């Protein structure tokens, strides 16, 4: 079942740590968001494979934006 990776807070995408097709485990870093002068990792909410990445480095994101999908 697909699960979305959400932005926890507003900021800019600092780093995309995965590619489509990568296998990830729960708590693996998938993005880093720059917010409040810090680099805040976004972790995989579950085990699975990255099926879609919706943002790229430098994009501004809002809280709860979907950043990627894990199947």
């Amino acid at each position, binding site marked *: 079942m697909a699960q979305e990776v959400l932005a926890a807070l507003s900021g800019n995408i600092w780093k995309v740590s995965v590619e489509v097709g990568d296998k990830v485990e729960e708590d693996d*870093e998938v993005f880093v968001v*720059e*917010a409040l002068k*810090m680099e*805040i990792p976004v972790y995989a909410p579950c085990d699975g494979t990255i099926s879609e990445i919706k943002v790229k480095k430098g994009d501004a994101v809002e809280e709860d934006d979907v950043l990627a999908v894990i199947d």
Partner: protein
Amino acid sequence: MRPYFEHMDEFGKELKAGRIKRAAESLAKLRETEAAIDSEKKKVEEVGFPTEKINARGWMTVWQRLEYLVDEGSWRPLHTLYNPLDNAEGTTNVIDGLAKIEGRWAVVIGFDNKFMAGAWLPGQSENILRVTDLAMRLNIPLVWLVNCSGAKLPEQEKFYANRRGAGTPFFRHAELEQAGVPVLAGIYGTNPAGGGYQSISPTILLAHKDANIAVGGVGIVSGMAPRGGFDAEMLEEIIAKTKEFTGRPPGNVETHYDHTGFFSHVYEEETGVLDGIKEYMKGIPAYAPEFFRVAEPAAPKFPAEDVYSLLPFNQKEVYDFDQILARLVDGSEHMEFRPDYGPEMYTGLCKIDGMLVGCIGNRQGFLGKGYPEYGDYPGIGGKLYRQGLIKMNEFVTLCGRDRVPMIWFQDTTGIDVGDTAERAELLGLGQSLIYSIQQTEVALMLVVLRKGSAAAHYVLGGPTANRHNAFTLGTAATEIAVMHGETAAVATYARRAVKEKDAGRPLEPIIEKMNELAQRYRDTSDPLYCAQHGFVDEIVNLSDLRSYLQAFAGAVYQNPKSVCPRHQLILPRIIKG
């Protein structure tokens, strides 16, 4: 209370391969910085005459004396790079640290007899005062290896006089003695004037056969009355007098063993003096560690080397503080205090070598939606908010009540600011934490893992907690400044930039000044600067942090002035509920 402490909650988890890989670059930078710091420390060790030259004169160096004196593997150096007045030699010319002697912890300090026969140098008295503070705080003996030729005369104006000048340690020795903290002195070489008082002010004086101590040395005894200047004729007279003078330095062992009896013992061999100190240390009051252990000592479940992959060198990168703590404390076990409140701060009971300590540390990263509860903005770890400050006030107060020493881990950008934060009383709560610390009677130590900034550096058990802070450690990632350099540049030049812009003048000069200020902040907040100027008492390799925690716990529980029976501890009961 055994059920509380024998098996506490386990925390931490093994490093994942991904984390190790991601941290590779950061790890390399941490190691590189540690290597650079180690290289600076090596220079301090090698200052002055080479060891061979000292040995050829029949003497041991201070380092050789230390090695012979202290229990193997117990030396925890402090202030190695401390050089607040920027001496060209890179040192204040004393070597100090915590060490065990005959199984008992002591603060040990010695003059470096390789340089100017152990002279007083600028900044040395501040170094010694830190050391006497440490002995007082931990209530453990101060052991001196005296070998002091007196003041470096051409620079006397920098240290001879003043409230915290070179005479102040003698008052501190008296203070220690009156507080029941003995000062043992092994005395070598020629110790005139300042060296004489360094020798006479301790509690027990153990001398080498060639040692002498005196109010004044040969130079003063044979000196001439000032005549308003020098000329060639006078210099010839001085040369002649100096050549004629064949007398021995005053205050040798015949005088101060046979006549005054100031020396308790005199030893033929240099090592005999050290053996004498060891004998006295056997008689120093010290509880067996078992007296205060709440559980058997245990190593952390995870390797100390992991910390290199957990603490990012990049100051902007967040990390999991709990994972670092799990690499430092016994069995990677703890009892966390109020885990559901004040998420930016960790507070909990842990064990070091089976002895109870209270740990406090900044958690990093996004603190979750709805926090801080009083603001409409996201909370980020490293900052202090209302709940975290209240929680620390409670925890510190309870540690004080239970006589539990505290270990603080600092990585903070400051206390939340703005009118919303003011209405949430953060200014008052920060000072309340200082009040709470001050009203306790337990020792604390501090590790500045990375950032120490703004008032948060003060309130989080900072070195400004004079009476309580035994010592502060830094790491290769430590950065201490009132604020980030670029923030300071904006604060300093923003208004001027507006004026220049409005006046149609070029902005390049402002940009240049802003970059200069930011660079100045970088240069004056890095680990080396922090160590040289006493912002920290030592920069320690991450893999050695636990050994200092062990020294702190062992020393603070060696002979505490006040105890709380373990079955009367209230903090673990509050945590258990």
